[in-house]
């Protein structure tokens, strides 16, 4: 079973090669970098070696577990700590605010309904929620938007989204840096394919049409790109 290093959160440095970089950049060995889309980044202070975090708020993983047994207060609390992230992702894909709101509503209703089946052994709560949100957003795009609408959006965006002020915490900044670093490990062409798929919601075929390249090449770049990303993020196999 492949597992993310998130299970090691806060206790061990992320599993990656200790190279020259890590010698010159102390953050590389900072436990705070262990978060792999960890709930800790959502406002719980990660103890990076300093003072212990006082009375930590429940993490999304804890809240989701309670949602799984029908706890409505936990559902409301989970919404409070995650809604801006989920809505932000949906908005990134589904531009129309009203549709994005509908999709977000569907995502949270699905979270409520399927929380009892959430398997913490397979990933973190937040990544599960992002996965649900991404799929629903992509399905909405495919169902509701004509291809040419998407054409118009292409190029209007850039992966380098500005760091947000809503939930800007040290953890989020570090997470962003870490993901950017991981993405930097990809070749330009791999990155292009992965981001067209994830942030524009294109299928492999649509990417190949967009880039006017062979489908086989797109598939290879997507796969190789994801393999590199997975390895750079320290998702172990």
């Amino acid at each position, binding site marked *: 079973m*492949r597992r993310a290093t998130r299970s090691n959160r806060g206790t061990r440095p992320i599993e990656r090669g200790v190279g020259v970089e890590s010698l010159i950049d102390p953050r590389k060995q900072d436990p705070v970098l262990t978060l792999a889309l960890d709930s800790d980044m959502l406002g719980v202070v990660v103890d990076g070696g300093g003072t212990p975090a006082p009375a930590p708020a429940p993490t999304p993983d804890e809240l989701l577990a309670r949602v*799984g047994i029908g706890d409505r207060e936990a559902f409301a609390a989970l919404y409070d700590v995650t*809604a801006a992230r989920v809505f932000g992702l949906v908005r990134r894909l589904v531009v129309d605010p009203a549709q994005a*709101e509908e999709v977000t509503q569907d995502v949270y209703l699905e979270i409520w309904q399927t929380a009892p089946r959430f398997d913490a052994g397979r990933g973190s709560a937040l*990544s599960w929620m992002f996965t649900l949100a*991404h799929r629903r957003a992509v399905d909405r795009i495919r169902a509701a938007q004509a291809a040419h609408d998407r054409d118009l959006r292409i190029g209007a965006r850039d992966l380098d989204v500005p760091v947000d002020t809503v939930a800007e915490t040290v953890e989020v900044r570090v997470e962003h840096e870490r993901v*950017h670093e991981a993405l930097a490990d990809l070749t330009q062409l791999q990155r292009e394919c992965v981001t067209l798929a994830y942030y524009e919601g294109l299928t492999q*075929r649509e990417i190949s049409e967009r880039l006017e390249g062979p489908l086989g090449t797109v598939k290879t770049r*997507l796969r190789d790109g994801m393999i590199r990303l997975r390895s750079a993020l320290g998702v172990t196999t």
Partner: protein
Amino acid sequence: MTGGDDMTEPRDHDREHDREHDDERVARDVAALEAMHELAAAHALDALDAEERAAFEAAAAASPQLRAEADSYAESAAVLGALAEPVEPPPGLKQRLVAQLDGLPQQQPASRALAHARRRWFERPGAILGAAAAAIILIAGVVIGVGWPGPNGWGAQLEMAAIAAAPDARSQTHEVAGGGEITLVSSAERGRSGVVVSGLPELAADQTYELWYLDDSGAASAGTFDVSGDETRRVLEGEFIPGVAVGVTVEPAGGSPQPTTEPIVVIPT
């Protein structure tokens, strides 16, 4: 009909033909599973079209390895979600959501025992098995495995993946009375079906789970299985014909020619 001396020759020939057929099938199954692994990364990015996605997910339901691979990519893809700029949702959304929870039952997990008591299967309303149970006809001889690779191993997994990858593959998940979950993956085109069970209790040494194809003419054994670990896969023996129901009973070790207990689950197709 030829003379006695010739009797063995055609059978040998048939066996050889079967072996070749099996080899071809295994090769095809390996290729099908590999093709699915190729799709895992794109699946995590939601970059598959609807058809590819359905095929991949049916295959993943049958293959723990494929599912683990899908999970690892999903975890990586989700990290990309963290790069999206957070945006506060409209203020009314939370209240609207909470107001809807009352009418929205939660799906229960596979491992949680069902609260309701078992009923005898022929008392289940609407069950096609009323007829099946009433018409128990002893069928001499249980169809034993027909030469394709064995019940719980790699071969079964390949076979499962191949069933799942069939264009007409269908996947149905049912809860099992007494706890656990069973997913039936079937393909009319291939004439095969298989089950993935999880959360079923381990049985005493003198008992086994037995699979049945059930139709109006009665119950035909489709093989036995024992559970170990989180999940057990089993390709059913015999031909899958759409419309048949698949049932599971607890039987004495070695299996029974006909069910002797009420089924713990019945899946109509």
